[in-house]
C-alpha cells in the first residue's frame, strides 16, 4: 500500500506483486534488506524492474524472470551480483527485485532510483548521475533474452527495450545499471523501501484504529495536506501509450471555496488551486481516499470520490539542476522552471 501511495497515481496495482513476493518468501525464506551505506566499493548491484503493459501483466502474470534477467547480466559481466535494487519504489515495480533476491539468496537494497514512480527508464537517478545504462538485458518467461551492449542514451535503451518487450508479449523484466557500492551510495535514493513500508503501515494503522489516515501518512513521510474535496470532473486520453489528462476536485471543509486541478501523465504532475500552481513534479502529489487512506491510481479516478491530496517533498537528489532537466516540469513538456512551493523543510 505504501508503494501505491508513493506511485503518485502511476506504477500500476501492487496486488499481484504482493502475491508474488509472498510466494517467494514462502519458498526461500525472508529476504535480507541492507542500507546503501553497508555496501563495499567492489560490490556489484543490479537494478531490476518489470517492463510492459499493466493490462497484460494481470493476465500473463510474471514469474521468476527477474532472477533469470539477473543471471544473464551476471554472466555477461563475468561477476556475481552482491545485491539487487529496485528502479522504482512506486507501484507494482517496487517488489520485482524481491523475486531475484529470494532465488539467488542475496540482499535487496533499501533504496531505489526514483523515490516515487516515473513513466520511463531514463528518469532514474542512477542514469541522471552518470551510471551506465548498458549492459542491460530484457528477459521473458519463455526463456528469451535480449542483451543490449550499447545504447547512445538511456532514452534509446528505453525505446529498444520496449520494442523487444512487445515481441516478447508485453510483460517482461529488465536488468540494468550495474553499479559498484560507491555508485549506489552516490546516486540511489536511500531508505525508500523502509519509507514505503512505514507509509503502508501508517495507513493500515489508521484503518485498524479508525483514525485519520492523512495524519498518520504525514508522520511517516513529512509533507503537507494540500486539499480535501470531491472529484468533480475528469478528462483523460491515451496517447503514445500514456494516460494523459486532468482531474478537478471541488473543495470541502476549509477548502470549500476552492478548486484543485491536477494534471497527470500516468503519474500526477502539477497541482493548481484556483489556477495557481501549488505543487509540481518531481515533488509527490498523492491522491488518497479521505476515509480509508487507500491510494487512488490514475485509472481508478472516478467522479464523486472524496479524496485528500497530499504533497510530499521529493528527495534532494531529484531536485538538483541536473535531475530537474529530466524529471522537472520541462522533462514533461511544460515551459516553466521547477519551483519548490511547499514551505516545509526538505528531508
Amino acid at each position, binding site marked *: 500500500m505504501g508503494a501505491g501511495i508513493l506511485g503518485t497515481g502511476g506504477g500500476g496495482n501492487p496486488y499481484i506483486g504482493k*502475491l508474488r513476493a509472498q510466494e517467494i518468501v514462502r519458498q526461500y525464506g525472508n529476504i535480507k534488506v541492507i542500507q546503501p551505506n553497508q555496501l563495499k566499493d567492489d560490490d556489484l548491484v543490479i537494478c531490476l524492474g518489470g517492463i510492459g503493459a*499493466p493490462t497484460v501483466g*494481470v493476465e*500473463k502474470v510474471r514469474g521468476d524472470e527477474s532472477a533469470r534477467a539477473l543471471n544473464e547480466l551476471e554472466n555477461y559481466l563475468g561477476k556475481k551480483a552482491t545485491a539487487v535494487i529496485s528502479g522504482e519504489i512506486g507501484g507494482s515495480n517496487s517488489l520485482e527485485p524481491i523475486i531475484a533476491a529470494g532465488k539467488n539468496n542475496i540482499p535487496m537494497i533499501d533504496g531505489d532510483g526514483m523515490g516515487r514512480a516515473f513513466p520511463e527508464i531514463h528518469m532514474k537517478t542512477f542514469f541522471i548521475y552518470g551510471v551506465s545504462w548498458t549492459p542491460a538485458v530484457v528477459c521473458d*518467461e519463455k526463456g528469451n533474452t535480449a542483451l543490449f551492449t550499447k545504447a547512445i542514451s538511456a532514452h534509446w535503451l528505453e525505446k529498444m527495450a520496449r520494442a523487444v*518487450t512487445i515481441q516478447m508479449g508485453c510483460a517482461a523484466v529488465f536488468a540494468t545499471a550495474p553499479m559498484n557500492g560507491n555508485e549506489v551510495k552516490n546516486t540511489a535514493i536511500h531508505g525508500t523501501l523502509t519509507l514505503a513500508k512505514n507509509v503502508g503501515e501508517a495507513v493500515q494503522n489508521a484503518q485498524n484504529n479508525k483514525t485519520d489516515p492523512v495524519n498518520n501518512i504525514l508522520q511517516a513521510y513529512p509533507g503537507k495536506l494540500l486539499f480535501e474535496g470531491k472529484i*468533480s470532473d475528469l478528462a483523460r486520453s491515451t496517447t503514445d501509450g500514456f494516460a494523459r489528462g486532468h482531474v478537478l476536485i471541488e473543495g470541502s471543509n476549509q477548502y470549500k471555496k476552492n478548486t484543485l486541478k491536477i494534471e497527470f501523465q500516468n503519474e500526477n504532475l502539477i497541482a493548481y488551486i484556483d489556477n495557481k500552481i501549488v505543487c509540481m513534479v518531481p515533488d509527490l502529489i498523492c491522491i488518497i481516499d479521505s476515509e480509508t487512506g487507500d491510494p487512488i491510481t490514475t485509472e481508478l479516478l472516478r467522479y464523486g470520490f472524496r479524496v485528500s491530496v497530499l504533497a510530499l517533498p521529493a528527495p534532494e537528489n531529484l531536485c538538483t539542476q541536473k535531475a530537474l532537466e529530466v524529471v522537472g516540469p520541462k522533462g514533461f513538456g511544460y515551459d516553466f522552471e521547477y519551483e519548490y512551493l511547499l514551505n516545509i523543510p526538505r528531508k
Partner: protein
Amino acid sequence: MRIGIDVGGTNTDAALINKNTIIKTFKTNTSKDITSSVSLCIKELIKNQEKQNIDSIIIGTTHLINDLIQRKNLPKTAIIRLCGPSTRLLKPLSDWPLDIVDKNLFSSHFISGGLEFDGREISSISKLEIQKLCDTFKSEKIESIAVNGIFASVNPYQEIETKKIIQQEMGNIPVSLSHQIGRIGLLERENATILNSMLIKSAQSTFANLNNIIKELKLNSKIYITQNDGTMSSIEDALKYPVFSLSSGPTNSMRGASYLSGIKNGLVIDIGGTSTDIGMLINSFPKESSIAVDFSGIRTNFRMADVLSIPLGGGTIINKQKPYLNELSVGNEITSKSLSFGGNITTITDIFAAESKTSFSLPNKNIIIEKLLSNNVKQEIKSKISLAIDKMKTSADTIDAIIVGGGAFIMPEDIDGLNLIKIAKHSEVANAIGSALAQVSGYSEKVYSTHNMTREEILNASKHDAINNAINKGADKRTIEIIDVEEIPLSYLPSNAITVKTKVIGNINNN
C-alpha cells in the same frame, strides 16, 4: 404472461406479470428444498389463469452462495492452467482462504498452451499430456474440471480443444472453460472458473428438479434462472454456469425498483433494517462493478452490479454521544429490543417513531427523544447517506433516486442533486418483479491488434461476437440492442493493441 420468483433465505416472493401489469403477488416461507416453495408460488399465481398463457417462469435464488459459505456439496475439482512456461510462480488458489484450500478438494496442474495478448501461441497444447492428466484425475476421483488458458478471451480454441480431449477420455465430466466465465485478469478469472466447477453439484441439486414442476402442473412454460447481471439463462445453462447465478439478489431488487417507478436512469437506494444498499441504474440495468468482487474470501472479476452497502438502517443502534450512529444494528431483533417494541435499546426507528414518522404503527407509542439528539442523529444520517451517494453518482447533475425498503422513512428529503421518488405499491415483491423482467445478454471482451484491422473493423468484430453470444443464449435476434461499448488501449506501450468490451441485451426468444 410471466412469473417471477425470488427465493430468499427466509421468504420466497412471487409475482405474475402480463405485459406491463402486475396481476397477482404471493409470499411464502422458503422450504428446505427450494422446489416445494417455488411450486407453491406457481400454483397460487396460476389459479384462475389459462395455463397456456404462462410463457416463462424466472427464478432468482441465493441457495448456491449458502452452499459455498457452508462449504457443503463441493465436488473434487481439478484445475488445469494452459500456460506453457508462463505464470507458473503463482499457482491456482494462491489467494484463497486456507480453510477451503486445505480441504483436499483440489488437484492443480500447469500444462502446455497459452496465448500472447495478440493471439500468438505461447505454446501449443499437447493431446498426450492432457490424456495422461485424465488418467491421474480418474485415480483421484475428480468430479469437476476447470480449464484456464492465458489470454483465452482473445481466442478460446485451446480451451475448447482441451475440453474435447478430456471428455473423450473421461466421458461427460463437467468441464468449465475460463473464456466463458470471466474477463481479462488471469487469477480472478481462474478463481471464478474454479468456483463454477465447485458449484456444479450444488446447482444440480438446486435447479435440476425445477423442470419437474412444469411437468407436474402440466404447464407449457420454460423455466429460467436469473443471473448476477440482471439477465437470465436457461436451466441447462445455469447447470453449466452456476457461478453466474451466485448473487442475483441486489440486481433483481434494482431492476424491480426501476420497473415499479418507471425510472430507467438514476439511483436506487434500498434502506433495510441493518444496511443501506445504493446502486446506479443505466438504461434499467445496474451499473457494473469495475473492480474485483470478493466472494466468501475469494477474489473474482464477475460482471456484477456495483452496489455500495453501508451499515445504516432502521435497526441501527443510537449512541449517547458522537458519533451517534453505531455500526451495529439490532437486525431481526428489532421487534423485541427497540424502544418502540418495548425493549431498551434506542434505534433509528425509535427516533422517527417519536415523531410518528415511521411508515408503520408500533406497539409502544410513548417514546420521548430529546430534540437535540434527534437532530444530531438526522444530521449524521444525512451526511452518511450523502457520502455514499456521492461515491455512486457518476456526474454532478441532479438525478432521480428511487427509495425502497422497509427503512425508507429514514431517508433525508433535502439532499442536493437528488430528485426523490417513492414507490407506492408492490415494493415488498420488488425482487420477484426484477426476476420476471430479466432479459438475455451477450458479451464480448477481447484484445485486438490494430496492425491488420481498422478501428471500425475491430468494433464490428466485437459487436458480432457479443450478438452471437446473446443468440446462443436464447435471445430473439430482432430485439437485440447494444448497450455498452468500451475501448481500452494498452497503456505504457505505443498503441498497437486495444481491448474492446461490448455488451448487448435482448428479449427471450419464446419460439
